[in-house]
């Protein structure tokens, strides 16, 4: 088992994200030791509704990421709307208002690529449901850096497009139905 070596988890989701994440994040135990970064595509002019929604249903801490914030284990960090979220090599979070990537800000690729640099083989990247191709390039970068790539089974996903593009870009990725992703991730804290 390699579960004890996981240093961080990054998750990207778009259309159908809330339901998929509700299957995963509430499964994490209260003393979960790993930081979890989540990018969900949300409209730019909406203040972030995700944090209150998940805070009420999760056992672990949930917050909107802040610029320059040191990363702490056992916290789910959501990217704020209209900003990219990046992880620095000193394990702090950076936000940026660089132009949208894949028509998205926040973009999954931006998070995945920066986290791959910061965590290398200790990173687990997960691409969930979505109707675009964000996350595919980033997932390939994670795999190249020695990290673990997981993709939601497109046949069961609310929207198959994002998982399908991710699998095409990163053939090494493991494909799992959403419930299995939830149980896989939730035991990664058990060293």
């Amino acid at each position, binding site marked *: 088992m390699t579960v004890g070596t996981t240093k961080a988890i990054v998750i990207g989701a778009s259309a159908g994200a809330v339901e998929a994440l509700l299957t995963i994040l509430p499964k994490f135990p209260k003393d979960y030791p790993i930081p979890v970064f989540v990018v969900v595509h949300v409209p730019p002019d909406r203040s972030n509704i995700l944090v209150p929604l998940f805070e009420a249903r999760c056992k672990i801490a949930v917050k909107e990421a802040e610029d320059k914030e040191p990363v702490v284990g056992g916290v789910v960090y959501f990217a704020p709307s209209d900003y990219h979220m990046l992880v620095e090599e000193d394990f702090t979070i950076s936000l940026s208002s*660089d132009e949208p990537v894949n028509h998205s800000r926040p973009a999954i690729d931006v998070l995945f690529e920066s986290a791959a640099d*910061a965590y290398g083989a200790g990173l687990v990247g997960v691409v969930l449901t979505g109707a675009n191709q964000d996350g595919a390039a980033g997932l390939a970068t994670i795999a190249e850096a020695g990290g673990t790539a997981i993709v939601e089974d497109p046949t069961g996903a609310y929207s198959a497009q994002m998982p399908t593009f991710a699998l095409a870009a990163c053939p090494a990725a493991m494909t799992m139905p959403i419930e299995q992703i939830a149980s896989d991730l939730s035991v990664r804290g058990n060293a």
Partner: protein
Amino acid sequence: MRPNIEDIEVELLLEALYQRYHYDFRHYAKASIKRRLVQACTQLHFSSISAMQNALLHDASTLPRLLNYLTVQVSEMFRDPSYFRAIREKVVPHLRTYPSLKVWIAGCSTGEELYSFAILFREEGLEDRTIFYATDINPTALHDAEAGVFTLDRIQKFTENHQKSGGRSSLSDYYTANYGRAVFDKSLREQVVFSDHSLVTDAVFAEMHLISCRNVMIYFDRPLQDRALGLFHESLLRKGFLGLGSKENLRFSAHANDFAEFDRAEKIYQRLAA
């Protein structure tokens, strides 16, 4: 762990940029700067960041092209309309009490925020008594700001933002549409001084009543943020205002105690007595 080759190349290029041209990006947040350099490398057709560094040192035409990747921010006019509404409704009443005003748009890039302020100040009847200082480190961006030309496809969003910010006029009063471009009225620039200025290496600017610097310091590391905030503190009159981007704040800064929160949600601060 050995640092990867790209990280070494990034550091060397930033050092070369500083030593040769005095543009100092060495204290920018690393993840974004690396992303931008990789993007520049691909789009400018260099085989590696080292190859780009070679061109930077030996081919003068490389610098402006690279700077556009490293600095230019695509913004919107009246971006975050609630910020401009707070300026209009809460800050402007204070500014009215001064016979003359100085406003600094720091890191103005291609001018979207500058024109937003110029229009807001005209609507509020403050324009004639105001001098705007619009500064940036990128000469190409400053040149674009001075031209005041934006593509028409962006105008719908600008117009929506302007209305949401409490605009008292129609944005179309301020530009002429021409060949797919909106050319903003040059009278909006009569009170503006454009200037090359770096928050990283340059000194205090002038005694300001209001400084707006949004989504610029977010790219700085903590010590550099502190330097810029110190510069703003020294450049503001007592009780002068400082407006930051919606995800920027002073909470973790060495200068947290030099400013009071004026509008917490909109990230508007007020300078305390020295």
